[in-house]
């Protein structure tokens, strides 16, 4: 069984989760977003070289999914904290 696509999904998930953390903490949003996008392309290129096209797709999918899940979780935490605030 080829485990490269699964591993690429794992790498992408960790990267997507981390991307949200790093992007949220940045002051220069445009610069940070550009650097993060460039870094994502770099990692995707690495995955393509090491593991091929399918793995690159699973990497991007994992990154996008983790980013969105993290974003959603954070929003949900914020709204629940705000609703409980006196």
């Amino acid at each position, binding site marked *: 069984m*080829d*485990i*490269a*696509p*699964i*591993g*690429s*999904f*794992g*790498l992408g*998930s*960790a*990267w997507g*989760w*981390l991307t949200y*953390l*790093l992007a*949220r*903490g*940045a*002051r220069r949003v445009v*610069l*940070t977003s550009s*650097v*993060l996008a460039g*870094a994502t392309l*770099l*990692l995707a290129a*690495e*995955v393509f*070289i*090491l*593991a*091929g096209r399918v*793995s690159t797709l699973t990497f991007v999918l994992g990154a996008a999914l983790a980013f969105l899940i993290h974003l959603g*979780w*954070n929003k949900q*935490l*914020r709204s629940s*904290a*705000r609703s409980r*605030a006196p």
Partner: protein
Amino acid sequence: MLSTVLAQVPQASTLQLWGAGAFGAIIGWYVYYVNRYRKADVQLSDLVSVVGVLGGGAILAIFPARTDLFGAYGIGLFAGFFGYLFVLAILVAASKNFDRDYFLDGRRKRLPDHYYIPAELQQPVRPLAVPGEVSIQIQARGTAESSSQPAGSSRPARQRTRGP
């Protein structure tokens, strides 16, 4: 022709696969740990470091292309990174001093009078998120309450408002 090329690709042994997975797990755990204890705002050098650690030249050099080693590394990385978050969530859920808002900005219950945190101990800054609007509200409230802080607490006000 493709089958000839694929036949020439070296296959990784089980021990190598486990090694690559364990290596990825350590990297993933450590990346989450380092980011959680990061005190300053994100710098360009931080991004370069993270990309370098996750998939830098070392990864390209260690794992030959078209082998399962890279896959095992990615699976291990996932396990280490999200394993840290999972363990943290279990510890927060088990503790009476924290609730799930800890993941928002690191808030926790105020220390009782007879407890204190030694000043030399490092406090984690970013459990999950970064200070946002909720933290700002807490900061405003914390400023108003600062006069009622217990005398035994040694944590400075800035750390308390920004989280662990």
